[in-house]
């Protein structure tokens, strides 16, 4: 028994003939921000779904703070920003946060969450009236409201402009500063470089390289070059 925020042990996941994960081993330690990198179809979203108890591994095991990801106890300690096509548009920002706060035993105060997600002044707006960046910040607020110890962000800055992306980065750093952990999947290598303590590159459902952004970069000029080299070498 351990109390690690997240642990994947030889996890495989098949969708019919497709092997989305092939023996994934991955551990997230307290206070760590792990960036999961990979091309489309590498298995990033499948890994996130297994971690959140939305998808059951074909074999192997996923633990969240030592427990089953589907247990309510695990779910109170984890918050996530998923890629969601549509959120109910007629509820106001504060109403969404208020409702989600009622799901948790020790929620953060609503005003505190609004501030942490940079939503001051937007509390009374309906979700449908917000810009893309603001909508992402609401989803971020919903992930924070339960006072989680592990935050899972599935491509949180896709489609955001530079300014919105930077402001979300700032909020993610503030979260980590409290000794809590983050798993982030991203396409943007600059994002991994800016935020992560550790980068895990997955390819065809298994870990291909792992290390600090500096280690992964090696002799290449940028993380992006290193990433391309890795993919070409495989």
């Amino acid at each position, binding site marked *: 028994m351990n109390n690690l925020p997240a642990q994947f042990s030889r996890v495989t996941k098949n969708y019919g003939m497709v092997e989305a994960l092939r023996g994934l081993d991955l551990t997230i330690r307290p206070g760590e921000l792990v960036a999961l990198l990979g091309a489309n179809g590498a298995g990033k979203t499948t890994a996130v779904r297994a971690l959140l108890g939305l998808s059951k591994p074909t074999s192997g095991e996923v633990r969240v703070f030592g427990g089953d990801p589907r247990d309510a106890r695990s779910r109170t300690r984890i918050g996530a920003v*998923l890629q969601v096509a549509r959120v109910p548009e007629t509820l106001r920002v504060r109403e969404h946060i208020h409702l989600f706060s*009622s799901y948790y035993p020790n929620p953060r105060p609503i005003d505190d969450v609004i501030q942490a997600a940079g939503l001051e002044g937007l509390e009374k707006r309906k979700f449908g009236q917000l810009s893309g960046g603001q909508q992402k910040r609401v989803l971020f607020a919903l992930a924070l409201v339960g006072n989680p110890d592990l935050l899972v962000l599935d491509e949180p800055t896709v489609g955001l402009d530079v300014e919105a992306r930077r402001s979300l980065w700032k909020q993610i750093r503030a979260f980590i500063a409290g000794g809590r952990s983050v798993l982030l999947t991203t396409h943007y290598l600059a994002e991994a470089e800016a935020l992560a303590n550790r980068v895990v590159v997955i390819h065809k459902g298994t870990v291909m390289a792992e290390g600090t952004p500096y280690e992964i970069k090696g002799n290449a000029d940028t993380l992006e070059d290193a990433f391309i080299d890795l993919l070409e070498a495989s």
Partner: protein
Amino acid sequence: MKTYLLEIKYEFLKALRMPQYALPTILFPIVFYLFFGVVFGQRNTGGVKMSEYLIATYGAFGVIGAALFGFGVSVAVERGQGWLEVKRITPMPIGAYFVAKLAMAMIFSAIIVLLLMIVGTTMGGVRLEPLEAITLLAVLVTGSITFCALGLALGFLVGPNSAAPIVNLIYLPMAFLSGLWVPILFLPKPVQTIALWLPAYHFSQLALHVTGGSRGESVLGHIGAMFAAAVVFGAIAYLGYRRDEGKTYG
């Protein structure tokens, strides 16, 4: 408990602020009733005034609409577009999600029935004793459960974009064939036989037992049919839910 109440409150607010749901759901039965119940209200059917007969059947029509669209279409949309997953990864008890939608459909149902009663008594010359009014409201709102179960089953079987058209394809023919628009006695004999297999028919007959104008069949038989339909739809919904979970958690 607090979660359930908040979930109900916000589910209701969400729907109320959605004109594409709230307006047709509430207005269609009222407008139809004004046309047929008030304008032709003084004619007789099955021994009662049309305006009294139609308050029961348009009440049933409105309740079914609130259930199929409020429950069915909204589950299909929220499930298909990822919002249900955002909720499922929280510790929210999944029951709260469904209870809130059921409560929302029942509140809308009560609003529709009360409005019909107001229109009927003020403009259609309908006379309802207080006990009759309360019984009719209770019958119509309780019957909503069967159609929420149907909506739930549809919500788990159809996609987010096809949900509204498919619901209409079931809702409108079922309403007509069950005698909700035009009294069942005016419909051809074969249709009257088909109606026996439609839950909306049994629902409207139960309501007509209160207002007068039912075909005098057994109340227990209608309740049994409604109950059986709820069980069948509930089972289909459960299988759909499991299939949905299996697609992800399988």
